[in-house]
């Protein structure tokens, strides 16, 4: 069985790095709706995909993944909002893990909004 002993090693390794982890106001924020509507529509794999990719690519200082409740647009869940400092908020609708991957590559890393998945592109306000 995996024990808690390994944690001690992680702590020692991390301790000197922790002080550097202050809230970065220049970071891109990716917010996934995780209320009943979002979860039922498949938000968990979307959140996990973003979180896994950010860690995998070592972008935890530049991209912050978090979750929120219901924003009142349940029929368009899973919804992902991207907040980039100095830019307008982008809202992606009806997301899944594959689309999340695409948004990760093209938008969050590449800097180009993936128009076809946005709420604006679907003609909604």
């Amino acid at each position: 069985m995996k024990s808690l002993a390994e944690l001690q090693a992680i702590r020692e390794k991390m301790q000197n790095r922790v002080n550097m982890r202050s809230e970065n106001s220049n970071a891109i924020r990716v917010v996934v709706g995780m209320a009943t509507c979002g979860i039922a529509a498949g938000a968990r794999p979307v959140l996990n995909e973003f979180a896994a990719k950010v860690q995998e690519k070592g972008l935890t200082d530049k991209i912050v993944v978090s979750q929120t409740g219901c924003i009142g647009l349940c029929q368009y869940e899973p919804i992902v909002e991207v907040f980039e400092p100095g830019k307008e908020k982008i809202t992606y609708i009806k997301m899944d893990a594959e689309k999340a991957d695409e948004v990760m590559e093209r938008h969050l890393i590449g800097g180009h909004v993936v128009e076809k998945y946005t709420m604006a592109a679907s003609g909604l306000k």
Partner: protein
Amino acid sequence: MTEISLNILDVAENSTRAGASLVTILIDISSADDTLKVVIADDGCGMTPEQVAKVTDPFFTTRTTRKVGLGVPFFKMAAESSGGSFDIVSEVNVGTTVTAIFGLTNIDRMPLGDITSTMHNLIVYHPESDFYYRYTVNGESFTLDTREIREILGGVPFDVPEVSAYIREYLEENKQEIDKEEIY
């Protein structure tokens, strides 16, 4: 909802929003009793008797963004349609305990699903609450207590990649050992 674990993620979310400092999640699978029992207990703000009476009504919610509240009704329906039962006990300023019992071998019981992701999500994204998790199959169990982890880590946050990965592995490996290749 297609998995019991998604219901747990959703209902436990209510506990964290109720300002709970400790959320207890117990899963107890018993072949002898033919049950899969889920308990979600918190020490959050609790509910008034009036709210408790209405919480399983899908057309009741305290929210203002919409008129329905489906989380608890979904969970209740899932348990009851598998020949099980559902119970919610709450007291203002004391907390809330939700108990759902599923018929383990009932054909209408949804799978437990990815409970590891549910617990990982809850722990990593709710640093303001502590979690006590116990997973039991036929009397054998493992636990994860974030208060213990917090103490060992001494200030290193849970969303640090190394810690987050450790928590996921801990949940995954221990569950595998307890499950003995059985899928619930």
